[in-house]
């Protein structure tokens, strides 16, 4: 039998994902610098409340509070031995809240980056990265996640390692990268490269796409970059609710629920099938996004000009297509050594 996410995708034109985990937990009192994942055992009531928020406003899929529950990140807090446990509990709490909803809701086991640079540029080997992700994935599986949700990745090597961990766990998965540097990831990956990469993996994800980054406009430009590759695989759009500002003692994202509702409709018109928010996106935003998706008839694919006019200007002239931006100059090589 197909997994729940695949079934929902077969039945529906679009699926509403959730919003932010970290920034919403801050609003519930999480102290900056503290790992959100420890709350799975220290404050399960608050983590449940976060999950319930998504269920109540009509999300079809939400992520577990396990973004950083891998050994590499938990090491900062001396909690590396708890990677599997914290991942499992994150999924258990989510499973219970999802099952209580009375409609099918996908529990997506969030897996964020290790935070380390992979070999050969950095010190983290493929094998070590697979092990780190695999441990987390096993925990999420034990806790009852329907699908693994690899997110905020910037390097091809790390994406591959997470994919392999999903394969070892025997779980379906989804994967998104963060395109925040002149239309590419900070490691230079273009939307087209990700679209090509997912098709070459031995276990391709159910869906792939973009999350986080710099605002709603940029994210949709990235989605158009995926669509241009012509792949049939469902595309994920999970953009931030604007950009972060510091107001009255806490972080506030300047994207209103109205703007995110517009973003959601445009994301669908761009070709995204799984639509949600990332940092700064609250249940209020999601409620408006659901309403807009349900009441606005599908429209033609928007142009870049229309996206900028409705959601705000792009952060960079380069769209990551590799043809538009200034290119790396051909430097006169005056020397080559054997």
């Amino acid at each position, binding site marked *: 039998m197909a997994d729940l996410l695949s079934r929902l995708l077969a039945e529906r034109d679009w699926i509403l994902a959730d919003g932010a985990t*970290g*920034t919403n937990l*801050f609003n519930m009192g999480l102290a*900056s*610098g*503290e*790992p*959100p994942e420890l709350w799975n055992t220290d404050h399960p009531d608050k983590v449940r409340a976060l999950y319930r928020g998504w269920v109540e406003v009509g999300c079809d899929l939400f992520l577990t509070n396990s973004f950083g529950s891998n050994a*590499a*990140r938990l090491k*900062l*807090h001396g909690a590396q031995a708890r990677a599997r446990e914290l991942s499992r509990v994150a999924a258990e709490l989510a499973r219970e809240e999802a099952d209580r909803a009375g409609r099918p809701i996908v529990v997506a086991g969030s897996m964020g980056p290790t*935070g*380390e*640079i992979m070999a050969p*540029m*950095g010190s983290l080997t493929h094998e070590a990265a697979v092990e780190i992700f695999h441990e987390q994935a096993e925990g999420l599986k034990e806790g009852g996640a329907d699908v693994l949700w690899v997110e905020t990745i*910037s390097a091809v090597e790390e994406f591959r390692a997470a994919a392999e961990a999903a394969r070892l766990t025997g779980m379906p998965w989804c994967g998104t990268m963060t395109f*925040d*540097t*002149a*239309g*590419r*990831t*900070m*490691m*230079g990956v273009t939307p087209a490269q990700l679209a090509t990469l997912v098709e070459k993996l031995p276990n391709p994800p159910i869906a792939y796409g973009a999350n*986080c980054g710099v605002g709603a406009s940029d994210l949709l430009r990235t989605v158009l970059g995926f669509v241009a590759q012509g792949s049939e695989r469902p595309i994920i759009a999970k953009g*931030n609710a604007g*950009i*972060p*500002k*510091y*107001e009255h003692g*806490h*972080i506030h994202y300047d994207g209103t629920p109205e703007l995110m509702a517009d973003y959601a409709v445009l994301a669908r018109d761009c070709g995204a099938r799984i639509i949600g928010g990332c*940092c*700064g996106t609250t249940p209020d935003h999601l409620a408006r996004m659901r309403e807009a998706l349900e009441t606005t008839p599908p429209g033609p694919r928007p142009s870049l000009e229309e996206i900028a006019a409705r959601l705000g200007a792009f952060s*960079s002239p*380069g769209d990551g297509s590799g043809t538009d*931006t*200034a*290119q*790396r*100059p051909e*430097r*006169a*090589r*005056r*020397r*080559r050594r054997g």
Partner: protein
Amino acid sequence: MAEEDDELILSELDDEELVQQMHDDLYDGLKEEIEEGVRILLERGWEPYKVLTEALVGGMKIVGDDFRDGILFVPEVLLAANAMKAGMAILKPLLAETGAPKVGKMVIGTVKGDIHDIGKNLVAMMMEGAGFEVIDLGINNPVENYLEALEREEADILGMSALLTTTMPYMKVVIDALVEKGIRDNYIVLVGGAPLNEEFGRAIGADAYCRDAAVAVETAKQFIARKHNQMAAG
């Protein structure tokens, strides 16, 4: 390009050509070539500080500009930084001996809960290249680390970095602690990291947000100059 043109011997270049070539080699992250270039310039009697600023920092400025403009990305910048570091390793002991000008002292670190240090390392290296003394606290720093190092080192500048939206508010925690202790105005506070912006930097009480390493160096120099002017006037 013809084969014979490819066989280029660094030591046969005149000073100007060699510096140009080193800029290219830095751009391409060629560590050994940079080391060789540094040695040749020193043998020709260049002051270590001149080698540093003209050959290395000048080259990294190009790398930094192209990173800012979305032409280079992190992998290329890391390679370039590695090559620069190799050149710096030769120059560092000599700079100490020759009493090269010290522009100021900076304490820098990634905030608590955050392990991302690519940007911070680049800033540290570029600052060193520009003549600053840099105390690098590494990653995952609680308030106490910053306070203790600032005091111990009698630093001029505090630099903080964060890559995550969940850790960037911690910069405010550190700045608030400085304010509480009545020492905020003793330091120039610079912040940076992918999710930040200028408005955020201002709102949390930093002196400036620096979008990349090259901007950090320029900003630090400006603030230090201003500080000196104030002292001269006072």
